[in-house]
């Protein structure tokens, strides 16, 4: 029942026009139910006042009344359906766009905790669930009380001696429905889970087709599949058989009740015909009793059908509200300092950073601990360390993807938390490892941060990122369309497009978070050469896995488990850092041998 409360709570937040729609629909529903109940009344009148009274005019009049009521029913029901559809789809639209508006204000930490895939579920299937349930509630559920009242009242007035039969039929219907319906939901859920498990085997065999073929285990996979397929068979059959019970049982019940009515009321009807007793049940009334029996079963069906949907509705609403109530972790200062264009001097001062838990509290183990390091304006600085040492976290603090837990990050002496988002966006650009590309042309993707970028600027950025070659090889060059989420690009191509985008916005601070991990060594070297020219005098922060990427930097920050292990040039670190030597040897081979190769290129 709390689902209905949730329904009205949502309605109370709806704009006035939607509330008006709802009220109009309620009036419509009362008319709709009345017209539905009128038809059996007219049948009764046809039999008792028309045929049995041998009155042809009455017969014709009744028939035309039936047609009028039938048309009225269609018109009103159509109106109600339209209002319900309008309100439900307006609700879906409002929640969908409202949710997305909210999401744009959330910081990376919020999104990590809510999880991207979960947010997508809320934006898509949750919205759909809400819409469907709303539609059903508004159109069907509110018919139930009126149908019930109408059917009971009419039987009580016309054939009061048969009221108990109706009561019994309703009671048995409720018992049957309660015995079957509530078990269906869980059974369907089990069937869906089994089906998902089955589809997993399908997906895996597509994704891992090379492995399946390499190891030649077709027979094993077939067995695994057909076992699960048979599970699905069992799981889907169970609710199907229970559903198969419904119609036969209810029909049997209905006609059993008719049989009882004939036995119970029959003698009275016959007597009434003979004696002309006006209080006796008339033959036509006996036949309409059958109709009201059917009508009395409907509210039970409706409620059983709609209530579970309302339960889902409530859950989906809760999940949407949770997003609406999320406080962004990173907020823009109300009165930001405005220093003009930044020069790119960065200082990490006593920085400690712990990611937040579900409740927004810092996790007990910080990812960065007491980091003190300075990057001069115009320097190219590499950040190197093992997986999990905090490299990405460190650079994410500069554009305020996350905020420090303790200490401060300063650009040109200003705490980043005092700068406007606009300032940070203009002067800091990040090209991430998990490169993102959007549907649209290559030009659109590269000029994403500078919508008024000229074709020359776009091409120049592409050249620097070594993306010009493969883009120009396309039939339509920069006007070639990139598929949704860049799915038609390889990982290396996406990375280069993302790098070109970062370069195109001409930042004072360029952050490359392992942006070239998916491109080959030769290409990477070319990109670095071009970047050295392009970014001369501006700051570059470079997160690297490959030591060859790092060793050309002015300075290398070596991170070890969240702390700064050492800072210095390649040669300094090679001399004094054991950790650095370990990494170098494992990636390059014996140091003695490569030593000679390295020297000539040192500046």
């Amino acid at each position, binding site marked *: 029942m709390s689902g209905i409360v949730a329904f009205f709570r949502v309605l109370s937040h709806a704009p006035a026009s939607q509330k008006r729609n709802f009220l109009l629909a309620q009036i419509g529903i009362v008319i709709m139910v009345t017209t539905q109940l009128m038809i059996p009344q007219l049948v009764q009148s046809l039999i008792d006042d028309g045929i049995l009274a041998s009155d042809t005019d009455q017969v014709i009049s009744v028939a035309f009344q039936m047609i009028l009521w039938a048309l009225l029913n269609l018109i009103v029901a159509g109106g109600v359906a339209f209002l319900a559809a309008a309100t439900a789809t307006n609700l879906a639209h409002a929640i969908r766009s409202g949710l997305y508006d909210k999401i744009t204000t959330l910081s990376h930490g919020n999104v990590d905790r809510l999880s991207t895939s979960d947010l997508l579920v809320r934006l898509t299937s949750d919205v759909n669930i809400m819409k469907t349930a709303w539609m059903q509630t508004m159109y069907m559920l509110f018919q139930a009380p009126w149908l019930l009242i109408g059917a009971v009242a009419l039987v009580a007035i016309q054939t009061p001696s048969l009221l108990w039969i109706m009561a019994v039929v309703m009671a048995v219907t409720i018992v049957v429905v309660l015995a079957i319906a509530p078990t269906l939901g869980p059974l369907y859920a089990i069937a869906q889970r089994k089906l998902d498990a089955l589809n997993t085997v399908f997906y895996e065999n597509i994704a891992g087709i090379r492995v399946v073929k390499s190891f030649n285990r077709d027979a094993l996979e077939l067995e695994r599949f057909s076992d699960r397929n048979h599970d699905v068979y069992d799981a889907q059959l169970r609710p199907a058989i229970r559903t198969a019970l419904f119609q036969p049982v209810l029909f049997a019940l209905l006609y059993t009740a008719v049989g009882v009515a004939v036995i119970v009321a029959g003698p009275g009807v016959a007597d009434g015909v003979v004696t002309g007793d006006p209080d006796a049940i008339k033959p036509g009334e006996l036949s309409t009793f*059958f109709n009201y029996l059917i009508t009395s079963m409907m509210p039970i069906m409706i409620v059983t059908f709609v209530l579970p949907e309302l339960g889902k509705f409530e859950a989906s609403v809760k999940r949407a509200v949770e997003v609406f109530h999320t406080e962004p972790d990173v907020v823009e200062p109300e009165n930001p300092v405005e220093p003009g264009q930044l020069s790119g001097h960065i200082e990490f001062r006593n920085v400690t950073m712990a990611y937040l838990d579900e409740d927004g509290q810092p996790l007990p183990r910080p990812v960065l601990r007491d980091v003190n390091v300075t990057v001069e304006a115009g320097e190219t600085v590499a950040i190197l360390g093992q997986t999990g040492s905090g490299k990405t976290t460190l650079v994410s603090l500069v554009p305020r993807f996350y905020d420090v837990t303790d200490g401060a990050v300063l650009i040109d002496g200003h705490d980043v938390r005092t700068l406007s988002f606009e300032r940070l966006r203009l002067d800091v650009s990040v090209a991430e490892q998990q490169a993102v590309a959007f549907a649209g042309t290559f030009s659109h993707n590269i000029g994403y941060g500078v919508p008024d970028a000229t074709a020359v600027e776009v091409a120049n950025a592409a050249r620097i990122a070594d993306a010009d070659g493969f883009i120009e090889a396309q039939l339509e060059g920069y006007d070639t369309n990139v598929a949704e989420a860049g799915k038609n690009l390889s990982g290396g191509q996406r990375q280069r497009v993302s790098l070109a985008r970062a370069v195109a916005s001409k930042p004072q601070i360029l952050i490359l978070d392992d942006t070239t991990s998916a491109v080959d060594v030769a290409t990477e070297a070319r990109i670095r050469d071009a970047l050295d020219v392009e970014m001369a005098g501006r700051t570059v922060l470079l997160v690297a896995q490959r030591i060859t990427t790092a060793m050309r930097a002015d300075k290398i920050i070596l991170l070890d488990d969240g702390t700064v292990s050492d800072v210095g040039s390649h040669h300094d670190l090679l001399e004094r850092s054991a950790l650095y030597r370990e990494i170098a040897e494992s990636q390059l081979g014996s140091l003695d041998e490569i030593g000679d190769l390295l020297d000539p290129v040192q500046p």
Partner: protein
Amino acid sequence: MSAERQPGTFPRLLGYVVRQRLRLGFAITFLVLGALVQSLQPFLFGTAVDELAGGDAGNATLYGAVIMGLAITSGLLNFVAFRQLAILAQKAVERLRNELFAKMQTLSLTFYDGESEGDLNARITSDTETVNQFFSTAIARIISSGMTVISMLVLMLVLDVTMTFVVVLIVPMSMGVFIILGRRIQADLRSYQELVGELNGYVEEVVEGQRTVQAYGRSAETAAQVRELSERAREADRSAQFRSYLMQPVNTLANNLDVALVALIGGSRAVSGAITVGDVVSFVGYAQQFGGQANQLSQVVTQTLSAVAGGRRVFEILDLDPDIKNSPDAQPMADADGKVDFDHVDFGYTPAKQVLFDNDFHVQPGEFIGLVGPTGAGKSTIINLLTRFYDVDRGEIELDDRNIISVDLDDLRRRCGVVLQTPFLFSESIMYNIAYGREGATEEECIEAAKAAEAHTFIEKLPNGYDTVLTGGAVALSQGQRQLLTIARAIVSEPDVLVLDEATSSVDTRTERRIQRALDRLMEGRTSFVIAHRLATVRNADKIIVLERGRIREIGSHDELMALDDGFYAELYLQQFTSSNGTNGADEDAVHATTEAEPEPTAGA
């Protein structure tokens, strides 16, 4: 309409049901009986009312009892029939899924390259689901509504021919309306699905790329775009919802109009004495059910149309002929020494684009071969050909001096073990994944393999050890740990030829060392092909094959290749450490030109 364009699909779908002759016959028999019994009811009730209206209640109890008895009988008959129909439907769809899966196992990689994964998944899930819906509801409806309509018709004709025509008159009209409305709804739903697909695709893209959207200050535009797409989806959705919900009132209208017609004509004829009042009661009863049957049948038409569309997409896969098959005279190969020869091999993934040109090299048993070259040079392609994921266009590949095309395909792949760049594991237990390497591998062998792969220690630390099931988020194995498991799997498979495709590229240094140790152990005494970006990985190879744009440029050991003047390998090797200032020009184009040669989807295609 679709059924006409693809004549085979509908009968073929029916075939899955008709195949179960006994069960189908049983279900139909019971349905016929149930429908007959059920259609007697309005007739009996009408007769009872007739007698009562004549002032005779003598048989009321008898009528009542018969009505009750028939009610229970028809309920039982119908339930038994529906139950059989449910089983029938589930068995049919189970069979279809099994066939689909078995088929997919036989299809070669060419097929998987051509299909988009999303499309394939859709065929497997939503298309089979449409067919499932068809089997479980449409077929039952066709049979049960068909039977009910026929038996009601028979009884009505027995009662009164004119009134039967009056009742039936409404059916073609209302069916027409339902079919037109149904088509409109289908069209609405399609356009809604398209718009909501576009909307969801966009939302997925921008939520996943939210960092980028924010970082480049494009939130406002993006939100506006979401709003606009959402608004368009709303318009289409409203019309689809409205029309769907209109079905029921239209159905009610059909029933009501049918009753009104019966009232008008039947009433007048009853007054004139042509029929009895009980007949009118009976016909009102039939009329109330008849319009509804038309609705049911029209829904069947819609469901059948979408099932035919879905079924066609499923059958398209079932009808594919795998292009890599065992040749009819294939001979088994119990084990191999590991001698591999490529004789002047040409190959392209598509006829338009050749990827390998005249590849010719010879490998002695037990040799360690490094494959290097820029992205797209054709390294992985060589491996794909050796394991017959694809067949060569020209030339020949031999294993132990036998053309691999003449070797039993299963045996050939059993002789080759592959460890890929991205470790692929099944969402089953760790034991399952290791034992996957070879049919009949014992638990002891798997544990031995895990030890050799340095995976045993971390497996033991997992909550359920070797029985730990690798599902989604339950067990978060690192990329390196997953790679160790795939190495254990390769060890179990006891290959004679080993292929390592960038097996250590995505892990950090320390893990890489463990993996390297495990790989060294695996490579001992086996012919091994190792593809590497980091040239240090193949430094100790017996031979390094240097590829560029599908052609072999150099072959030799590291020292030999480094000693070459203007050697391409030496250049690549030095590039790792140096700025590429000296290596521009022709080579730059080389990389560009070959980047697209890999079988990757490309823009604008």
